[in-house]
Protein backbone atom coordinates (compact mmCIF):
# COMPACT_ATOMS: atom_id res chain seq x y z
CA UNK A 1 0.00 0.00 0.00
CA UNK A 2 2.90 2.30 0.66
CA UNK A 3 4.10 1.75 -2.89
CA UNK A 4 1.74 4.42 -4.12
CA UNK A 5 3.15 5.90 -7.27
CA UNK A 6 2.39 9.48 -8.15
CA UNK A 7 0.63 8.51 -11.32
CA UNK A 8 -1.82 6.56 -9.18
CA UNK A 9 -2.35 9.70 -7.16
CA UNK A 10 -3.02 11.54 -10.39
CA UNK A 11 -5.49 8.89 -11.48
CA UNK A 12 -7.16 9.17 -8.11
CA UNK A 13 -7.32 12.93 -8.49
CA UNK A 14 -9.15 12.49 -11.77
CA UNK A 15 -11.61 10.29 -9.93
CA UNK A 16 -12.34 12.87 -7.24
CA UNK A 17 -12.09 15.95 -9.44
CA UNK A 18 -15.48 17.23 -10.56
CA UNK A 19 -16.22 16.20 -14.14
CA UNK A 20 -14.71 18.60 -16.64
CA UNK A 21 -17.18 21.47 -16.98
CA UNK A 22 -18.75 22.15 -20.33
CA UNK A 23 -16.32 24.16 -22.43
CA UNK A 24 -18.16 26.99 -24.12
CA UNK A 25 -16.71 28.47 -27.25
CA UNK A 26 -15.52 31.96 -26.37
CA UNK A 27 -14.14 34.79 -28.50
CA UNK A 28 -15.88 33.46 -31.60
CA UNK A 29 -15.40 37.01 -32.84
CA UNK A 30 -13.22 39.76 -31.37
CA UNK A 31 -16.02 42.28 -31.46
CA UNK A 32 -19.77 42.49 -31.05
CA UNK A 33 -19.74 43.43 -34.73
CA UNK A 34 -17.88 41.62 -37.46
CA UNK A 35 -17.65 44.89 -39.41
CA UNK A 36 -21.07 46.38 -40.15
CA UNK A 37 -22.82 43.14 -39.29
CA UNK A 38 -23.52 42.26 -35.66
CA UNK A 39 -21.75 39.13 -34.41
CA UNK A 40 -23.02 36.61 -31.86
CA UNK A 41 -20.73 38.21 -29.27
CA UNK A 42 -22.15 40.22 -26.38
CA UNK A 43 -20.25 42.25 -23.80
CA UNK A 44 -19.97 40.21 -20.57
CA UNK A 45 -22.48 40.56 -17.73
CA UNK A 46 -22.07 43.85 -15.90
CA UNK A 47 -20.05 45.33 -18.74
CA UNK A 48 -20.93 48.40 -20.81
CA UNK A 49 -19.46 48.98 -24.24
CA UNK A 50 -18.80 52.19 -26.11
CA UNK A 51 -18.31 51.97 -29.87
CA UNK A 52 -17.24 54.75 -32.19
CA UNK A 53 -17.49 54.12 -35.90
CA UNK A 54 -16.14 56.23 -38.73
CA UNK A 55 -16.71 55.88 -42.45
CA UNK A 56 -14.67 58.25 -44.55
CA UNK A 57 -15.45 59.57 -48.03
CA UNK A 58 -15.30 57.40 -51.13
CA UNK A 59 -11.84 56.47 -52.34
CA UNK A 60 -12.92 57.42 -55.88
CA UNK A 61 -14.12 60.90 -54.88
CA UNK A 62 -11.14 63.20 -55.63
CA UNK A 63 -8.90 60.91 -53.61
CA UNK A 64 -5.90 63.22 -53.40
CA UNK A 65 -7.92 66.38 -52.78
CA UNK A 66 -9.94 64.67 -50.02
CA UNK A 67 -6.96 62.66 -48.76
CA UNK A 68 -8.66 59.36 -49.65
CA UNK A 69 -11.87 60.47 -48.00
CA UNK A 70 -10.38 61.39 -44.66
CA UNK A 71 -11.69 64.97 -44.95
CA UNK A 72 -15.30 63.83 -45.03
CA UNK A 73 -16.41 61.38 -42.40
CA UNK A 74 -19.62 59.90 -41.13
CA UNK A 75 -19.66 59.00 -37.51
CA UNK A 76 -21.60 56.67 -35.29
CA UNK A 77 -21.42 56.24 -31.57
CA UNK A 78 -23.28 53.84 -29.38
CA UNK A 79 -23.37 52.62 -25.83
CA UNK A 80 -24.76 49.32 -24.69
CA UNK A 81 -24.93 47.37 -21.46
CA UNK A 82 -25.32 43.70 -20.54
CA UNK A 83 -27.25 43.27 -17.27
CA UNK A 84 -26.86 39.50 -17.64
CA UNK A 85 -24.56 37.46 -19.84
CA UNK A 86 -27.25 36.59 -22.41
CA UNK A 87 -28.74 40.07 -22.91
CA UNK A 88 -27.33 43.32 -24.24
CA UNK A 89 -29.20 46.50 -25.08
CA UNK A 90 -28.20 49.99 -26.05
CA UNK A 91 -28.70 53.07 -28.15
CA UNK A 92 -26.76 54.78 -30.87
CA UNK A 93 -26.69 57.67 -33.25
CA UNK A 94 -25.37 57.63 -36.80
CA UNK A 95 -24.70 60.82 -38.73
CA UNK A 96 -26.01 59.36 -42.00
CA UNK A 97 -29.61 60.70 -42.26
CA UNK A 98 -29.14 61.78 -38.63
CA UNK A 99 -30.44 58.44 -37.42
CA UNK A 100 -31.09 57.45 -33.80
CA UNK A 101 -31.52 53.83 -32.86
CA UNK A 102 -32.18 51.48 -29.99
CA UNK A 103 -31.12 47.86 -30.14
CA UNK A 104 -31.05 44.60 -28.23
CA UNK A 105 -29.28 41.30 -28.61
CA UNK A 106 -30.38 38.13 -26.84
CA UNK A 107 -28.24 35.01 -26.88
CA UNK A 108 -30.13 31.73 -26.95
CA UNK A 109 -27.58 28.95 -27.40
CA UNK A 110 -23.85 28.68 -26.86
CA UNK A 111 -21.61 26.43 -28.85
CA UNK A 112 -20.01 24.00 -26.41
CA UNK A 113 -18.11 20.78 -26.01
CA UNK A 114 -17.99 18.39 -23.09
CA UNK A 115 -20.30 15.94 -21.38
CA UNK A 116 -23.98 15.78 -22.28
CA UNK A 117 -25.74 17.67 -25.03
CA UNK A 118 -23.74 20.28 -26.89
CA UNK A 119 -24.97 22.96 -29.27
CA UNK A 120 -22.88 23.07 -32.43
CA UNK A 121 -23.58 26.79 -32.87
CA UNK A 122 -24.04 29.97 -30.91
CA UNK A 123 -27.30 31.69 -31.78
CA UNK A 124 -28.64 35.11 -30.92
CA UNK A 125 -31.53 37.33 -31.92
CA UNK A 126 -30.66 40.90 -32.79
CA UNK A 127 -33.18 43.67 -33.24
CA UNK A 128 -32.84 47.37 -33.91
CA UNK A 129 -35.33 50.22 -34.30
CA UNK A 130 -34.22 53.37 -36.09
CA UNK A 131 -35.62 56.90 -36.34
CA UNK A 132 -34.42 59.08 -39.21
CA UNK A 133 -34.53 62.76 -38.20
CA UNK A 134 -33.67 64.59 -41.42
CA UNK A 135 -36.68 66.54 -42.81
CA UNK A 136 -38.86 64.90 -45.45
CA UNK A 137 -38.29 66.51 -48.85
CA UNK A 138 -41.35 65.19 -50.66
CA UNK A 139 -43.78 67.94 -49.58
CA UNK A 140 -46.29 65.56 -48.00
CA UNK A 141 -47.45 65.45 -44.42
CA UNK A 142 -45.98 62.53 -42.52
CA UNK A 143 -46.61 60.55 -39.39
CA UNK A 144 -43.74 60.29 -36.95
CA UNK A 145 -43.78 56.52 -37.49
CA UNK A 146 -42.89 57.10 -41.16
CA UNK A 147 -39.39 57.77 -39.90
CA UNK A 148 -38.99 54.35 -38.38
CA UNK A 149 -37.58 51.08 -39.59
CA UNK A 150 -37.01 47.82 -37.76
CA UNK A 151 -34.29 45.25 -38.23
CA UNK A 152 -34.50 41.63 -37.13
CA UNK A 153 -31.69 39.11 -37.43
CA UNK A 154 -31.25 35.55 -36.29
CA UNK A 155 -27.50 35.19 -35.83
CA UNK A 156 -26.03 31.70 -36.11
CA UNK A 157 -22.26 31.30 -35.72
CA UNK A 158 -19.76 28.55 -35.28
CA UNK A 159 -16.16 28.77 -34.15
CA UNK A 160 -14.79 26.17 -36.54
CA UNK A 161 -11.40 26.16 -34.85
CA UNK A 162 -9.16 28.58 -32.95
CA UNK A 163 -8.64 30.67 -36.09
CA UNK A 164 -11.78 30.45 -38.20
CA UNK A 165 -15.31 31.51 -37.24
CA UNK A 166 -18.28 31.72 -39.60
CA UNK A 167 -21.68 33.28 -39.22
CA UNK A 168 -24.93 33.27 -41.18
CA UNK A 169 -27.91 35.47 -40.33
CA UNK A 170 -31.38 35.50 -41.90
CA UNK A 171 -32.34 39.15 -41.98
CA UNK A 172 -35.56 41.16 -42.21
CA UNK A 173 -35.77 44.93 -42.38
CA UNK A 174 -39.23 46.47 -42.17
CA UNK A 175 -39.56 50.02 -43.42
CA UNK A 176 -42.70 51.84 -42.30
CA UNK A 177 -42.34 54.04 -45.38
CA UNK A 178 -40.73 53.18 -48.71
CA UNK A 179 -39.94 55.51 -51.60
CA UNK A 180 -41.86 53.83 -54.42
CA UNK A 181 -44.79 51.40 -54.65
CA UNK A 182 -42.44 48.85 -56.19
CA UNK A 183 -40.40 48.68 -53.02
CA UNK A 184 -41.45 46.18 -50.43
CA UNK A 185 -41.87 47.32 -46.85
CA UNK A 186 -40.36 44.02 -45.78
CA UNK A 187 -36.93 43.52 -47.27
CA UNK A 188 -35.19 40.22 -46.72
CA UNK A 189 -31.63 39.01 -46.88
CA UNK A 190 -29.07 36.55 -45.63
CA UNK A 191 -26.00 38.01 -43.96
CA UNK A 192 -22.74 36.09 -44.19
CA UNK A 193 -19.68 36.84 -42.14
CA UNK A 194 -16.45 35.40 -40.93
CA UNK A 195 -13.14 35.99 -39.32
CA UNK A 196 -9.76 34.35 -39.62
CA UNK A 197 -7.14 34.92 -36.94
CA UNK A 198 -3.76 35.82 -38.34
CA UNK A 199 -2.06 36.16 -34.96
CA UNK A 200 -3.27 36.11 -31.36
CA UNK A 201 -4.23 39.75 -31.66
CA UNK A 202 -5.04 40.29 -35.31
CA UNK A 203 -7.73 38.82 -37.51
CA UNK A 204 -9.06 39.17 -41.05
CA UNK A 205 -12.79 39.81 -41.21
CA UNK A 206 -15.48 40.06 -43.86
CA UNK A 207 -19.23 40.46 -43.99
CA UNK A 208 -21.72 40.47 -46.84
CA UNK A 209 -25.49 40.76 -47.12
CA UNK A 210 -27.15 38.80 -49.88
CA UNK A 211 -30.50 40.52 -50.41
CA UNK A 212 -33.57 38.57 -51.55
CA UNK A 213 -35.79 41.43 -52.78
CA UNK A 214 -33.41 44.32 -53.33
CA UNK A 215 -34.39 47.86 -54.24
CA UNK A 216 -33.21 49.15 -57.64
CA UNK A 217 -29.96 51.09 -57.80
CA UNK A 218 -28.69 49.73 -54.50
CA UNK A 219 -26.04 47.11 -53.99
CA UNK A 220 -25.32 44.30 -51.61
CA UNK A 221 -23.02 45.57 -48.87
CA UNK A 222 -19.61 43.92 -48.73
CA UNK A 223 -16.96 44.81 -46.18
CA UNK A 224 -13.47 43.47 -45.66
CA UNK A 225 -11.33 44.37 -42.69
CA UNK A 226 -8.86 43.58 -39.99
CA UNK A 227 -9.40 43.42 -36.23
CA UNK A 228 -6.57 44.56 -34.00
CA UNK A 229 -6.80 43.92 -30.31
CA UNK A 230 -4.79 45.96 -27.82
CA UNK A 231 -5.82 44.95 -24.31
CA UNK A 232 -8.76 47.23 -23.55
CA UNK A 233 -9.63 48.22 -27.12
CA UNK A 234 -10.58 46.49 -30.32
CA UNK A 235 -9.74 48.42 -33.48
CA UNK A 236 -11.54 47.34 -36.62
CA UNK A 237 -10.24 48.82 -39.87
CA UNK A 238 -12.02 48.05 -43.09
CA UNK A 239 -13.01 48.81 -46.63
CA UNK A 240 -16.71 48.81 -47.45
CA UNK A 241 -19.16 49.95 -50.10
CA UNK A 242 -21.68 50.81 -47.36
CA UNK A 243 -21.10 54.22 -45.87
CA UNK A 244 -24.09 54.46 -43.57
CA UNK A 245 -23.83 52.70 -40.27
CA UNK A 246 -27.50 52.60 -39.22
CA UNK A 247 -28.69 49.04 -39.87
CA UNK A 248 -31.57 49.57 -42.37
CA UNK A 249 -29.38 51.89 -44.41
CA UNK A 250 -26.21 49.87 -44.75
CA UNK A 251 -28.19 46.68 -45.20
CA UNK A 252 -30.80 47.67 -47.76
CA UNK A 253 -29.92 51.15 -49.08
CA UNK A 254 -26.28 50.97 -50.08
CA UNK A 255 -25.76 53.00 -53.27
CA UNK A 256 -22.03 52.26 -53.43
CA UNK A 257 -20.68 49.74 -55.91
CA UNK A 258 -17.33 48.04 -55.32
CA UNK A 259 -16.79 47.56 -59.05
CA UNK A 260 -17.07 51.32 -59.63
CA UNK A 261 -14.66 52.15 -56.86
CA UNK A 262 -17.30 53.39 -54.41
CA UNK A 263 -15.20 52.14 -51.53
CA UNK A 264 -15.06 53.73 -48.12
CA UNK A 265 -12.30 53.41 -45.59
CA UNK A 266 -13.67 52.99 -42.08
CA UNK A 267 -12.97 51.95 -38.55
CA UNK A 268 -14.77 50.95 -35.39
CA UNK A 269 -13.19 51.39 -31.98
CA UNK A 270 -14.57 49.45 -29.06
CA UNK A 271 -13.93 50.17 -25.41
CA UNK A 272 -15.52 48.29 -22.54
CA UNK A 273 -16.30 49.53 -19.03
CA UNK A 274 -16.88 47.18 -16.13
CA UNK A 275 -19.86 48.47 -14.16
CA UNK A 276 -20.34 45.39 -12.05
CA UNK A 277 -17.33 43.14 -11.46
CA UNK A 278 -17.69 39.50 -10.48
CA UNK A 279 -16.10 38.19 -7.26
CA UNK A 280 -12.52 37.97 -8.44
CA UNK A 281 -10.62 38.07 -5.12
Amino acid at each position, binding site marked *: MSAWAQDD*LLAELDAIAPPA*PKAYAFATFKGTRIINQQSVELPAAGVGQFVIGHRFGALNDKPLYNLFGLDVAQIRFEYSYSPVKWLNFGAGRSSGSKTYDGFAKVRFTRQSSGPGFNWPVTTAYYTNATIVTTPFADGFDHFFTDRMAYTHQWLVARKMNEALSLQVAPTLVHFNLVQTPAESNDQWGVALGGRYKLTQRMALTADYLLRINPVDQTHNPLSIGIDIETGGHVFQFHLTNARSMADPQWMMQTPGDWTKGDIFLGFNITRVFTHKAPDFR
Partner: protein
Amino acid sequence: MKKTLFLSIALLATLSASAQKLVSRDTYVHFFSETPVEDIEASLKDGVGLINTETKEFVFQVNIQSFTFEKALMQEHFNENYMESTKYPKGLFKGKITGDVAFSKAGTYTVKLVGTMNIHGKDRPMTIPATITVSKEGLVVLESTFIIKPTDHDVEIPSLVVTKIAKEIEVKVKSTLRAN
Protein backbone atom coordinates in the same frame (compact mmCIF):
# COMPACT_ATOMS: atom_id res chain seq x y z
CA MET B 1 -18.33 -14.49 15.72
CA LYS B 2 -16.28 -15.21 12.64
CA LYS B 3 -18.53 -12.89 10.68
CA THR B 4 -18.11 -10.05 13.17
CA LEU B 5 -14.35 -10.43 13.16
CA PHE B 6 -14.26 -10.35 9.39
CA LEU B 7 -16.47 -7.26 9.30
CA SER B 8 -14.41 -5.39 11.85
CA ILE B 9 -11.20 -6.24 10.01
CA ALA B 10 -12.75 -5.05 6.77
CA LEU B 11 -13.92 -1.85 8.46
CA LEU B 12 -10.52 -1.26 9.98
CA ALA B 13 -8.83 -1.80 6.64
CA THR B 14 -11.16 0.71 5.00
CA LEU B 15 -10.54 3.26 7.74
CA SER B 16 -6.79 3.00 7.57
CA ALA B 17 -6.84 3.05 3.78
CA SER B 18 -8.95 6.21 3.68
CA ALA B 19 -6.89 7.85 6.38
CA GLN B 20 -3.98 7.84 3.95
CA LYS B 21 -5.63 10.29 1.61
CA LEU B 22 -6.54 13.87 2.24
CA VAL B 23 -8.79 15.49 -0.31
CA SER B 24 -9.76 19.04 -1.18
CA ARG B 25 -12.34 20.05 -3.76
CA ASP B 26 -12.47 23.74 -2.90
CA THR B 27 -8.86 24.85 -3.05
CA TYR B 28 -8.53 28.61 -3.38
CA VAL B 29 -5.91 30.00 -5.75
CA HIS B 30 -5.28 33.70 -6.24
CA PHE B 31 -2.69 35.39 -8.40
CA PHE B 32 -1.52 38.94 -8.56
CA SER B 33 0.47 40.70 -11.24
CA GLU B 34 1.68 44.11 -10.18
CA THR B 35 3.20 46.75 -12.45
CA PRO B 36 3.23 50.55 -12.28
CA VAL B 37 0.78 50.59 -15.21
CA GLU B 38 -1.76 48.03 -14.14
CA ASP B 39 -2.54 45.50 -11.42
CA ILE B 40 -4.13 42.27 -12.55
CA GLU B 41 -5.54 39.69 -10.20
CA ALA B 42 -7.81 36.70 -10.43
CA SER B 43 -8.92 33.82 -8.29
CA LEU B 44 -10.68 30.50 -8.29
CA LYS B 45 -12.23 28.43 -5.53
CA ASP B 46 -12.65 25.02 -7.13
CA GLY B 47 -9.14 23.62 -7.30
CA VAL B 48 -8.75 19.98 -6.34
CA GLY B 49 -5.96 18.49 -4.27
CA LEU B 50 -4.90 15.14 -2.94
CA ILE B 51 -2.24 14.25 -0.38
CA ASN B 52 -1.13 10.75 0.46
CA THR B 53 -0.26 11.11 4.14
CA GLU B 54 1.83 7.98 4.15
CA THR B 55 4.12 8.72 1.19
CA LYS B 56 3.64 12.51 1.49
CA GLU B 57 3.00 12.71 -2.21
CA PHE B 58 0.64 15.40 -3.38
CA VAL B 59 -1.23 16.53 -6.51
CA PHE B 60 -3.04 19.84 -7.00
CA GLN B 61 -4.99 20.71 -10.11
CA VAL B 62 -6.98 23.73 -11.32
CA ASN B 63 -9.11 24.46 -14.36
CA ILE B 64 -7.53 27.52 -15.98
CA GLN B 65 -10.93 28.73 -17.19
CA SER B 66 -12.13 28.85 -13.57
CA PHE B 67 -10.02 31.93 -12.88
CA THR B 68 -12.35 34.91 -12.47
CA PHE B 69 -11.06 38.40 -13.22
CA GLU B 70 -12.43 41.82 -12.41
CA LYS B 71 -12.65 42.60 -16.12
CA ALA B 72 -14.28 40.05 -18.40
CA LEU B 73 -12.09 41.13 -21.29
CA MET B 74 -8.95 40.41 -19.26
CA GLN B 75 -10.31 36.96 -18.54
CA GLU B 76 -10.96 36.39 -22.25
CA HIS B 77 -7.45 37.52 -23.18
CA PHE B 78 -5.92 35.43 -20.38
CA ASN B 79 -7.62 32.33 -21.74
CA GLU B 80 -7.38 33.04 -25.44
CA ASN B 81 -4.05 34.76 -25.90
CA TYR B 82 -1.84 33.90 -22.95
CA MET B 83 -2.81 30.58 -21.38
CA GLU B 84 -4.44 29.13 -24.52
CA SER B 85 -6.75 27.29 -22.15
CA THR B 86 -8.67 25.52 -24.89
CA LYS B 87 -5.42 23.73 -25.71
CA TYR B 88 -4.07 23.58 -22.15
CA PRO B 89 -7.13 23.51 -19.89
CA LYS B 90 -5.39 22.56 -16.65
CA GLY B 91 -2.67 23.68 -14.30
CA LEU B 92 -1.05 20.91 -12.29
CA PHE B 93 1.45 20.73 -9.45
CA LYS B 94 2.55 17.29 -8.27
CA GLY B 95 5.37 16.11 -6.10
CA LYS B 96 6.33 15.28 -2.57
CA ILE B 97 6.21 17.12 0.73
CA THR B 98 9.58 17.39 2.44
CA GLY B 99 10.04 18.40 6.06
CA ASP B 100 8.44 17.23 9.25
CA VAL B 101 4.72 16.96 9.22
CA ALA B 102 2.45 14.70 11.25
CA PHE B 103 -0.99 14.67 9.70
CA SER B 104 -2.41 12.89 12.71
CA LYS B 105 -1.13 15.39 15.25
CA ALA B 106 -2.53 18.89 15.70
CA GLY B 107 -0.02 21.63 15.03
CA THR B 108 1.49 23.94 12.44
CA TYR B 109 4.25 22.60 10.24
CA THR B 110 6.56 24.47 7.90
CA VAL B 111 7.38 22.30 4.93
CA LYS B 112 8.52 22.44 1.33
CA LEU B 113 6.60 21.16 -1.65
CA VAL B 114 9.04 19.70 -4.12
CA GLY B 115 7.61 18.82 -7.48
CA THR B 116 6.76 19.65 -11.06
CA MET B 117 4.58 22.60 -12.01
CA ASN B 118 2.75 22.17 -15.30
CA ILE B 119 1.26 25.38 -16.67
CA HIS B 120 0.51 26.13 -20.32
CA GLY B 121 1.55 22.57 -21.10
CA LYS B 122 5.10 23.23 -19.92
CA ASP B 123 6.72 21.36 -17.03
CA ARG B 124 8.96 23.17 -14.61
CA PRO B 125 10.59 21.72 -11.46
CA MET B 126 9.67 23.82 -8.44
CA THR B 127 10.21 23.87 -4.72
CA ILE B 128 7.84 26.10 -2.82
CA PRO B 129 7.45 26.81 0.89
CA ALA B 130 4.18 25.96 2.59
CA THR B 131 2.64 25.76 6.01
CA ILE B 132 0.41 22.88 6.96
CA THR B 133 -1.92 23.34 9.89
CA VAL B 134 -3.56 20.27 11.38
CA SER B 135 -6.49 21.05 13.65
CA LYS B 136 -7.64 18.95 16.58
CA GLU B 137 -10.56 17.79 14.43
CA GLY B 138 -8.13 16.46 11.84
CA LEU B 139 -8.76 19.20 9.30
CA VAL B 140 -5.63 19.96 7.30
CA VAL B 141 -5.05 23.44 5.88
CA LEU B 142 -2.20 23.97 3.45
CA GLU B 143 -1.16 27.53 2.67
CA SER B 144 1.53 28.73 0.32
CA THR B 145 2.70 31.84 -1.47
CA PHE B 146 5.09 31.54 -4.37
CA ILE B 147 6.19 33.11 -7.63
CA ILE B 148 5.43 31.99 -11.16
CA LYS B 149 7.26 33.47 -14.13
CA PRO B 150 5.23 33.46 -17.36
CA THR B 151 8.43 33.05 -19.35
CA ASP B 152 9.20 29.80 -17.49
CA HIS B 153 6.10 28.31 -19.04
CA ASP B 154 6.46 29.70 -22.56
CA VAL B 155 3.63 32.18 -22.07
CA GLU B 156 4.24 34.75 -24.75
CA ILE B 157 3.80 38.39 -23.77
CA PRO B 158 3.89 40.77 -26.71
CA SER B 159 5.92 43.95 -26.46
CA LEU B 160 2.73 46.02 -26.65
CA VAL B 161 1.59 44.89 -23.19
CA VAL B 162 4.97 44.10 -21.68
CA THR B 163 4.61 47.01 -19.22
CA LYS B 164 1.22 45.76 -18.01
CA ILE B 165 2.09 42.20 -17.07
CA ALA B 166 4.54 41.47 -14.27
CA LYS B 167 7.55 39.25 -14.96
CA GLU B 168 6.96 37.58 -11.62
CA ILE B 169 3.43 36.72 -10.64
CA GLU B 170 2.57 36.09 -7.01
CA VAL B 171 0.37 33.08 -6.41
CA LYS B 172 -1.42 32.35 -3.13
CA VAL B 173 -2.95 29.00 -2.37
CA LYS B 174 -5.16 27.94 0.50
CA SER B 175 -6.36 24.37 0.51
CA THR B 176 -8.51 22.75 3.13
CA LEU B 177 -8.13 18.98 3.04
CA ARG B 178 -10.20 16.33 4.70
CA ALA B 179 -9.84 12.59 5.05
CA ASN B 180 -11.66 11.05 2.14
